[in-house]
């Protein structure tokens, strides 16, 4: 069989290994592009031997909507409603970072209370996103019931978003200049009630998920990211922290009011699926604490928005900037270039998923078995929508 297809392997895969499909020892499997678990539309091309993965290639492109390009054709204000759509579970980071880059180049100062409200929503977004991840992580290991609790409690947080911003998913709340509205009457009490409810749930989750023989068995040792990969792959967020790297934009380069809030960077050392889950779990507790701190310490009134130049003619001085923030999955960044016109010259969105879902996944899957692929994928906590801007 001279024409047997040979799949070349990249350096990332075990060196020198070649897979001869015609040998009959291997099978190709596709996972996705329908949601493999809760990771969105991308697909994994598995080459398996028995149920062991010998090679994995990631395929993206199912979700490409060309946001970055679209933004070059829209005025600065018109981009405000679309940035949130880049990432469904954590839209607010897009809103915040877009606003922050625009404000920096345009020299706009945001009122203090607006910064508190922004910070509050970013932490609420983290909470909602973590709760959704619980759904994915447990679901992928066949523990869907726990997942339902997570998803439900995320919905309670979305209720808060809905009353604050008028939308459950796409909040469009953080707008250049500030935010679009005050906290509704009685918001604080309702928010605290939701936080208590989540806290109550966390106890159960700890018992049912983290002290669960099945979960431990499957998650421990799965997908161990070697410490030395962290920097060379540009790994951030809980994926890095679970490997013992205390990297967190909120501490390293504090934005909004994080330098005034009380929290520690959570780390672990095992760098496997279990430890990553544990770091996230601790960060849910951390989010609850941060939100409570903010509700207590936030000034009770004050301006929420700075008057912008007329958005219909708004031109922004030429310049460029990169701003970043810590979302649940790591570093989220916006790079904005202005040529002085009314339209951005270039917007580049750096989501953590690109690194974590594409390159990292290709490396880490080899050697795992088929049944663990979904759980492994979720353990990197990636959202394909922000891979494909």
């Amino acid at each position, binding site marked *: 069989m001279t024409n047997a297809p040979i799949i070349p392997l990249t350096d990332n895969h075990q060196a020198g290994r070649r897979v001869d499909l015609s040998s009959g020892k291997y099978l190709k499997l596709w996972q996705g592009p329908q949601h493999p678990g809760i990771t969105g539309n991308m697909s994994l091309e598995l080459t398996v031997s028995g149920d062991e993965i010998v090679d994995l290639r990631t395929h993206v492109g199912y979700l490409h909507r060309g946001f970055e390009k679209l933004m070059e054709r829209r005025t600065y204000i018109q981009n405000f409603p679309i940035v949130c759509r880049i990432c469904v579970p954590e839209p607010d980071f897009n809103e915040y970072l877009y606003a922050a880059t625009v404000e920096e180049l345009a020299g706009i100062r945001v009122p203090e209370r607006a910064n508190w409200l922004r910070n509050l929503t970013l932490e609420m977004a983290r909470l909602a996103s973590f709760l959704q991840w619980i759904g994915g992580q447990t679901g992928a290991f066949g523990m869907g019931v726990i997942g339902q609790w997570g998803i439900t409690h995320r919905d309670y947080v979305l209720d808060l978003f809905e009353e604050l911003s008028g939308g459950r998913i796409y909040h469009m709340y953080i707008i250049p200049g500030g935010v679009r509205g005050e906290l509704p009457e009685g918001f604080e009490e309702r928010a605290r009630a939701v936080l208590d409810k989540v806290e109550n749930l966390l106890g159960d989750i700890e018992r049912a998920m983290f002290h669960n*023989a099945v979960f*431990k068995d499957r998650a421990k040792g799965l997908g161990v990211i070697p410490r030395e990969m962290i920097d060379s792959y540009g790994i951030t967020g809980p994926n890095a922290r679970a490997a013992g790297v205390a990297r967190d934009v909120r501490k390293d380069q504090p934005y909004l009011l994080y330098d005034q809030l009380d929290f520690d960077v959570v780390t672990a050392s095992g760098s496997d699926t279990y430890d990553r889950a544990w770091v996230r779990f601790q960060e849910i507790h951390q989010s609850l604490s941060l939100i409570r701190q903010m509700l207590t310490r936030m000034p009770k009134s004050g301006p929420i928005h700075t008057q912008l130049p*007329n958005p219909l003619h708004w031109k922004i001085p030429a310049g460029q900037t990169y701003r970043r923030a810590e979302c649940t999955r790591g570093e989220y960044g916006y790079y904005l270039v202005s040529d002085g016109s009314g339209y951005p010259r270039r917007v580049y969105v750096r989501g953590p998923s690109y690194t974590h879902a594409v390159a990292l996944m290709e490396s880490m899957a080899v050697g795992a078995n088929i049944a663990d692929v979904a759980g492994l994928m979720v353990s990197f906590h990636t959202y394909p929508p922000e891979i494909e801007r």
Partner: protein
Amino acid sequence: MSLKDILSPLTVWRRTAEKPYTVIDPINDRPGAARYRGFHKNDMEACIGCGTCETICQNAAIDLVPVEGIETTNGDSGLRPQIDYGRCCWCALCVDICTTSSLTMSNEYIWVDTDPEVFRFVPGAENKPWDNSELGYSRAEGYQLLDPERVEMPELEPDTRLTSFIEMVQGYSAEQAKKEADRCVECGICMAACPAHMDIPGYIKAIRENDINGGLALMYQTNPFPASCGRICTHRCEEVCAINHTGDPIAIRWLKRYIADMADESDYQAITKTAEPERTEKVAIIGAGPGGLSAAYYLRLLGYQVTVFEAQPHGGGMLRYGIPEYRLPYDQLDKDIDLVASLGVEIKYNTRINGLKESNGPKESDGPGSDGGPAPSFEQLYQDYDAVFFSTGLPDPYTLGIQGEDHPRVISGISILEDVTAGKTPDLRKSVAVVGGGNVAMDAARTARRMGCEVTVLYRRREVDMPADEEEITEAKEEGVKFITQAIPVRIEDKPEAKGEQAAFVWGEAEMVDQGEDRRPKPVLQEDKIHTDLFDTVVPAIGQGSSLDFIPEDMAAKIGIIKYKIKVGLHGETGEPKIFAGGDISNRLKDAISAIADGHRAAKGIDRYLRENQSKKETS
């Protein structure tokens, strides 16, 4: 694997007894939050169809469309936004930017239908179940996309103003002008309200883009008096400005002035070059006021040979002899007039056209012609020229019509203003009563203040009814003018001891009597509430009339005069094909910009008339 890890998950067993989290009947049990961004609502009465919502919508989900029952009026385009929910992303930017705050959203988000067409409709115009819903998104307090505040105009302090006739409004700096220009949403509602239909959004944009020349050229397309109008225009445009609904209107007039101030002479020359070939037809224009000179300008641009006849020694009409220098400095008026003259328009000053049938020499009152010869008669112009346009204004002040008005201490407002322009000092003395509440009254009162008088304005109705610009009333007050409203003149008496040196002004208090909906209340004298005040001078400034005696009778019959006004068509046509008229003698609004617009339209009318004439000649 420890035993604990097997037993631990079982400790959450009580969750199995929980009720489901799912909302069973979301349509009824789960209405959108109070701020939910659901289907739009629009208050049809408040919306003005400015289309700003359409401009901002990045999804092009909005089209402005005609709606049955909504008329196009001054300040309302008559269109309303139609929203295509196949495109809308519910961002509510349209709500945030709505100039009138008419557009909001309901909290309704569920609507199922098999006909896709229904999802494109005009909110507010087609009854929807959520139209009256209290809940839903609207722009929050403390957050707005459009700046409601006008850039403040630097002005002289009232004390400084009173010491001279220096212009009190100082003009915007480049930075201020740009900031003010930035507030415009370019809806163009103002253009319809401007009697000359100036391209206001266009020249405001030119300011934003630092294109002074472009702005000036745009202004000259419809108005050859930008420096003057930039100061004294009645700015009807600002009244209807979309931003006026929730904030201060754009300072359109000051922006116009900014362009005129910034443009230097070479800019002026550059924009007014005419490409039209010279034409041989001659047009005579009577009156070098804004109406006459506007007609002259546009006729000259079309290549006609234009001669303007003006009774006074200088041009500008009431802009010069009425409006005081502190509002419109003469050099600014001259700048506008000089440009018209520089195009080759001949202006014969000191030349009063008379009504004599045959020109048998000037009357005593008529000045000589500028060439030293007698001033021509109307008849002569009619004979010698291919067309005649006249815009002779309203020079005759009406009197109070009351007893004792022939008292020597009664001087009309117009004559005071005219004297000051001519460099004479009107004999006002100390205490002055000005009667009336229009611009002439304000100008006379404030002029008197600048001459050191104590001034009281007496007006028949309430302050809100005063036809004078609100600004002028405020400024007059700042300058120390006192106001007595609801004061009806009764008679003027001479106190024997004052020997004609002081007038006793008798006036009565008015009661405002309601006249039903659309009419303003009428002031009715209360005969038991009569007051007498002594003044050194009483200044009636209640209105002016035309003086049309320069038109011979037979000609007048053909031209068509109704109630002392010239009856004209859309292009200034009178009953006599060769004769056109405009300005205060024919229009309703009686301000500079209307006269300018009349002049422009008449120029078009005359051009059409002369071309038709020519083609008739050629074919015959």
